[in-house]
């Protein structure tokens, strides 16, 4: 009877944890009766238990999403994973951008062999739980140019679709000698969670987690800005549109702030902008012309319908009328301003074709630079 009672209590405790995600564990830890009082083995088992029952990592909460900043460094203080640009030190950020500069030359026309042997014998696994063409392909090209073996998992037909938990999938791939995981997931904090789970010789790169972060996109945007505009600290940068759902915008804002950019503007309807952005130097505009006045960089974002409730924003043409980037509106910006878009781009909704294909557009250069930046990130973390 006593034993049964105990089992029931434990079951109840686990259910509580599942329902509330990781929050309760973290809060218990803070009270000194959670992680710290459990032996790490027990804790690991408990975490496992939760994951088995919540295969799609939905049990994560915001606390977990933001814990990436600390967990991307190993005990020696070297970058082991790339999970977020929030809290990434300036010297690390510059080290990645400077290294990427070197990798641009790997694709120079004069070089007959557009491949270097830095990751020879390493296995890179593309784990895209959310669809992507550009990011997955550029990661694949980057890994192949570093001579790594690349395995693209088709999640739709994989064991995950048959009910295997994400962390069980990861364990199996680690048992197949995986070295680097490139992870995209609709849940914020998913890659941070995987990074905490893998053994120390395995590396995780966040290729977009929910509405949280997309660090390599942020880095390639910074690389593009630095390439065309040199000193980032002197720039005026405007980000237009669906900022609230945009992990790209978040990564950019943190990266720009770290590099000393003093004039970052977010422009859009109230429903698409965060109610407050508590970062120094970020200003919110609800008028496109006001926001664009004199800026050096204009970044437009895709409206992420899949992440919003019906009626949250004017649709299609209506949005374009009010917020679309036309050449007339672009004229408010500095005459030498560059136009960026992380893709996929919806012509006639957030950007006019004449601007997307115009002389100020560097949208396709972003894609090309993305390869060099991803090569830099992979080669840096793989050697740490």
């Amino acid at each position: 009877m006593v034993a049964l009672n105990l089992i029931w209590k434990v079951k109840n405790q686990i259910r509580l944890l599942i329902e509330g995600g990781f929050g309760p564990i973290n809060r218990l830890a803070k009270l000194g009766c959670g992680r710290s009082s459990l032996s790490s083995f027990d804790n690991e088992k408990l975490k496992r238990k939760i994951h088995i029952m919540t295969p799609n990592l939905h049990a994560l909460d915001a606390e977990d999403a933001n814990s990436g900043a600390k967990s991307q460094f190993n005990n020696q203080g070297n970058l082991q994973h790339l999970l977020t640009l929030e809290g990434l030190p300036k010297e690390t950020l510059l080290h990645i951008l400077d290294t990427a500069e070197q990798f641009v030359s790997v694709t120079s026309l004069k070089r007959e062999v557009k491949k270097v042997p830095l990751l020879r014998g390493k296995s890179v696994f593309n784990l895209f739980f959310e669809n992507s063409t550009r990011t997955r392909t550029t990661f694949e090209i980057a890994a192949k140019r570093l001579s790594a073996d690349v395995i693209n998992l088709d999640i739709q037909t994989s064991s995950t679709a048959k009910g295997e938990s994400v962390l069980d999938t990861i364990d199996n791939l680690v048992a197949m000698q995986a070295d680097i995981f490139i992870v995209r997931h609709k849940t914020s904090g998913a890659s941070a969670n995987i990074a905490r789970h893998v053994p120390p010789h395995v590396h995780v790169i966040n290729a977009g987690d929910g509405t949280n972060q997309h660090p390599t996109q942020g880095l390639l945007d910074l690389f593009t800005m630095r390439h065309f505009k040199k000193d980032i600290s002197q720039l005026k940068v405007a980000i237009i549109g669906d900022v609230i759902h945009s992990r790209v915008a978040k990564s950019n804002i943190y990266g720009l702030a770290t590099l000393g950019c003093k004039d970052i503007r977010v422009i859009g309807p109230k429903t698409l902008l965060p109610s407050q952005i508590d970062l120094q130097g970020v200003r919110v505009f609800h008028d496109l012309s006001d926001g664009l006045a004199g800026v050096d960089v204009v970044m437009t974002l895709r409206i992420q319908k899949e992440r919003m409730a019906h009626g949250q924003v004017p649709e299609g043409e209506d949005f374009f009328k009010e917020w679309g980037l036309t050449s007339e509106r672009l004229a408010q910006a500095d005459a030498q301003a560059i136009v960026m878009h992380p893709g996929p781009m919806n012509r006639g909704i957030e950007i006019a074709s004449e601007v997307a294909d115009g002389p100020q557009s560097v949208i396709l250069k972003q894609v090309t630079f993305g390869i060099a930046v991803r090569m830099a990130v992979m080669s840096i973390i793989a050697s740490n």
Partner: protein
Amino acid sequence: MSANIPDDIPLSRPDAEHLYRGLLGQLKFALLADPEIQIAGLASGGAWLAKRLASDLGLVHFGVINVSFHRDDYQDKGVRAIQRAEFMSTTLPFDVEGATIVLVDDVLDTGRTVRAALNELFDYGRPKKVELAVLADRHRRELPVDATYKGAKVELGSQQILVLEQLPDGRFEFNMESKKSN
């Protein structure tokens, strides 16, 4: 031989300018025999040398080779090595295919850097012939590599390293440093 030389006593510092004049003379002679020779310096010390050699030899251009992508110590030293090359990317302003190329470096030691340089060079094409010119040869080879042209052989303690510096007036100077323990 070097085994009898204590590690902590610095030996006399080689005179880089003297070695440079010797090397320049050998390359002038080589150019008389084959006027089509191209030179390429290994970043960064070898690249400074190649620049001055190109000017003194009356060559229209010189190449720079960054060996970072082919280093064999990447797993230990990581991309810090790429950083050290001070942003000198490989630039070869001539057609590598079928060319006679003299690689230029400041110090030839184990031969590993030269191996990496050959790999990098061959990523750009198939040269007819590759030669090597160095200011100082430490002859402690770990690979079957030798220099075609050399300023001089130098004898140093095993923990000492030679670092080439270029003074503001363009002259070269060798500094002796102790090997940092990693």
